């Protein structure tokens, strides 16, 4: 049926390439675009073009940026001595939202995953090591995910960084703020008990 409207079919096919978007959702989005004024559709197309044209990776921290180095790497108010390592740019944004960290960042763009054949060469570890060897950094805060891959990456970094004399720390994990213990999963409670601290 839709084959008789090639431009519409093409839009559905393109939208269906997005993560988490199946053909049904893609068709719904395409209908939405169709109903929008032409100016809005142009603005969407222009925004996509601009993103592809202007955004690149920062040559220092590998976060997404329009200016290289990125504002996070050039901000003089940030502490040069601490680098927070994250897996993906969205993880950096999650930490920035909290306003709890005022150091620099390093985005690995992945994590070690033996089952997927992803080793240290496939992520930005060499670039991190080069930054650490500059001598300014005193602490590396590893904020990779608390998954098998994130933990493997943290252990690998610890092995690399400790001989350099740089302090290495890992994000704490435990009971989410505002939650009742009885509803928290066993593994989280287990790790919260293991990671308990003095009051």
């Amino acid at each position, binding site marked *: 049926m839709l084959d008789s409207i090639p431009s519409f079919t093409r839009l559905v096919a393109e939208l269906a390439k997005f993560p988490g978007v199946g053909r049904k959702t893609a068709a719904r989005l395409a209908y939405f675009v169709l109903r929008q004024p032409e100016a809005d559709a142009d603005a969407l197309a222009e925004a996509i073009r601009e993103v592809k044209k202007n955004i690149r990776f920062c040559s220092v921290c590998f976060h997404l940026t329009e200016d290289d180095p990125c504002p996070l790497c050039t901000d003089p108010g940030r502490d040069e001595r601490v680098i927070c390592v994250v897996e993906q740019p969205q993880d950096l944004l999650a930490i920035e939202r909290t306003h709890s960290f005022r150091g620099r960042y390093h985005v690995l763009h992945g994590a070690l995953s033996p089952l997927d*054949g992803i080793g240290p060469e496939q992520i930005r570890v060499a670039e991190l090591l080069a930054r650490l060897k500059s001598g300014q950094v005193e602490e590396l805060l590893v904020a990779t995910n608390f998954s*098998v891959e994130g933990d493997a990456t943290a*252990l690998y970094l610890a092995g690399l960084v400790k001989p350099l004399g740089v302090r290495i720390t890992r994000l704490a994990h435990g009971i989410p703020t505002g939650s009742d213990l009885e509803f928290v999963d066993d593994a989280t409670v287990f790790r919260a008990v293991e990671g308990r601290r003095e009051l």
Partner: protein
Amino acid sequence: MFMHITVTEAIVLRHVDYGEADRIVTFLTAAGDVWKGFARHARSSRKRFGASLEPYSRVRVHWRPGRGDLASLQQVELLALRDGLRRELLSLTLAGYGCELAMEIVGEGGHQPGMFAWLDAFLDHLAAGGDPASARLLLELHFLQLAGYIPHLLHCSECFGRLGDPVAFSAARGGSLCDACASGRGEVTVGLATLGSLSRCLRGRPEQIGEIRLGATTLQETRPLLETALDSVLHRPLKSKKILEELLRNDRERT
């Protein structure tokens, strides 16, 4: 239509993210089956599955037939998270290797009774900080045996005659070769004592994995033997093996 819920004990071999919030999880069940289940909202809701879908965990899966080949996961109880694996990179990588080896040897939809007990004991042993080298050898050896691919060890695989010392070994020709049958091509050399150790290891039970500690010579001589035997069974090189070998090489260089 009411569909009965089945409860199965299993090891989580791996998971892959699907769509916005779902996961497809691969299990090795206690009965020795490798199958996949669909965990709806596994990533968006920690309440439903929590950490129970983390790889290498032993779990109790409540499932019902889903659409297509995937089972629909209703609930997954965590029996053993094996948190100790996350203290050593080598243990974590080796755990991944063991799981990938099980997946490859059994194959999706395949059935291999006995493999669960060995993988379960192997993961428990690593999580408790046990010797990784001997455990790896035992796992590989018993996986080969369970799959029916164990090479002939203490007699010539071609003429069933007595072996000399050292022994020529060729996985392609079925295992050990006597001096008369050995051709010198595509063979590895191994001591008769090492073959004796391997033969004794084959009589071990999974719960003894922590009690067996093999010497450096046995481990060293056995590696190429097992490599060739596994290569002849596996359909593709294991992704985790490349990372594991790199890690072991770095460790050797450091020491």
